[in-house]
């Protein structure tokens, strides 16, 4: 069965220099199990091909049913250096939630 992350999670994103931070939060425990299992560092790196040009770091916060990602080399230089309309990565949380996962 295919599930779109936006149906099981919400979140927020922002900037840390040229890196974007994306936090995603499952609505329930079952959803968090799916995030933990399927939204891996590799899956996120592949999803953001052409957007993220650096390393992807992944952190777990089971207490908040959440995952936090740092996407390095993603914001076109960050700050006022970046020419991007979304220089602060504000819309990248929903970009991640576009991801579809194949669950059993």
């Amino acid at each position, binding site marked *: 069965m295919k599930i779109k992350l936006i149906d099981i999670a919400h979140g927020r994103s922002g900037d840390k220099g040229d890196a974007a931070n994306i936090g995603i939060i499952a609505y329930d425990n079952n959803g968090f199990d799916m995030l933990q299992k399927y939204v891996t560092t590799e899956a996120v790196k592949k999803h953001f091909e052409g957007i993220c040009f650096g390393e992807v*770091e992944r952190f777990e916060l089971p207490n908040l049913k959440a995952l936090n990602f740092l996407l390095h080399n993603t914001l076109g230089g960050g700050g006022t250096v970046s020419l991007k309309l979304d220089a602060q990565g504000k819309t990248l949380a929903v970009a991640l939630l576009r991801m579809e996962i194949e669950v059993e």
Partner: protein
Amino acid sequence: MKEKIRIASGQGFWGDLIEAPFYQVTRGEIDYLVMDYLAEVTMSILQKQKNKNPNLGYAKDIPDLMKRILPICKEKKIKVITNGGGVNPVACAKAVLQVAQTLGISGVKIGIVLEDDIKERIDEIISAGCELKNMETGDSIIEIKEKLLSANVYFGAFPIVEALQKGADIVITGRTTDTGLTLAPMIYEFGWEKNEYDLMSAGTIAGHILECGAQSTGGNFLGDWDSVPNFAEIGFPICEAFSNGEFIITKHEALGGKVTVETVSEQLLYEIGNPEEYITPDCVADFTSIKLKQSGENRVRVYAIKGKPETEFYKVSCSYADGFSASGSLTYSWPKALTKAKAADQILRKRLELLNLSFDEIRSEFVGYNSCHGPLAPEIDEDKINEIQLRVSVRSHDFASVERFGKELAPLILTGPPSVTGFAGGRPKPNEVVAYWPALMPKTLVQPKVEILEI
């Protein structure tokens, strides 16, 4: 010692809702109003203002705001803490004293936190053996020393605590951490000790929840955002803090917004790195220890927070001039809006090439199609698209190239694809690019200083 205090957030950045701090002091009871005005970009803007006029360099909204709220704060004994002093906290404090004088208010003590500005001390710091190496690239600051616009140390809560202990009713700082503004009144009121790291972390995390204003009370909330009541009069967060380190995030009942485990969780995840190591000058807080519980309508209890000792370093934020950029746009209408915008982009790029201009980067975005999500944006059916805005931006160390780019956009209206409009703003002007230089510095190389002004 008090058992409980109410700390209200009044501002999430310079440019935030002007009415918010006024609502916080008038629509319910609070003990402290804390306001964060400083983003990284703000410091360089303020430094430029101070270079032009030595009496400027702080958030100019503050005197106007104090004119409205000082009499109320005085009557209700609300203390105000802000980092809006920017690169000139003394001038900011004097402007506020002027306001008090005009209003005929006396008996006001303003605490000022100084010495975070190290721009004039760079050589001395380098000779002391600290090259302020860029945390991302490892390069020494010597490489950009001549281009520095601002350099500030992030102080924590303790200089503010000192000001409160000296009787300050208002505390104005320069570059203090956003979280320190909220932690400080807890340390002061509850008598917490520096080495009580769980408590330091609790106050720090409370500060993280408050520092972006309404982002924890329903603003920019990605969950069921359309269920958030009364955005127009959104209530900014209030932290009801207890002496044992537990706290409740809430808001004034009379205002809009909502406080749920979901709205608070989103803010907890905002702009963090490794959640087990949230580093501030006061402690290293562990976000994986936080427990949240809905304890009533618009009330979220936050507890069980753990933390570790602070590091031996202050974070330093420097900014420097790094070339020029410009950005402009044109709007293309149906039919085939995207095809036309893409054609116009190619024509423009060809002309820039023929002119032999020099750019570090040229970026084209198609607003209405892919400006937010780039290659993740799915293909669109052009027949269903009414219009597309072409946005082109350039960056270069050659001012003339950026200036000439600004003159090449408008000609596309008469010399390119049809049904184009939206060029009312004139030629895009070159802006100075401000780049950041994050670094670490041993805490021993700088001592915060606290002064009190009184009227």
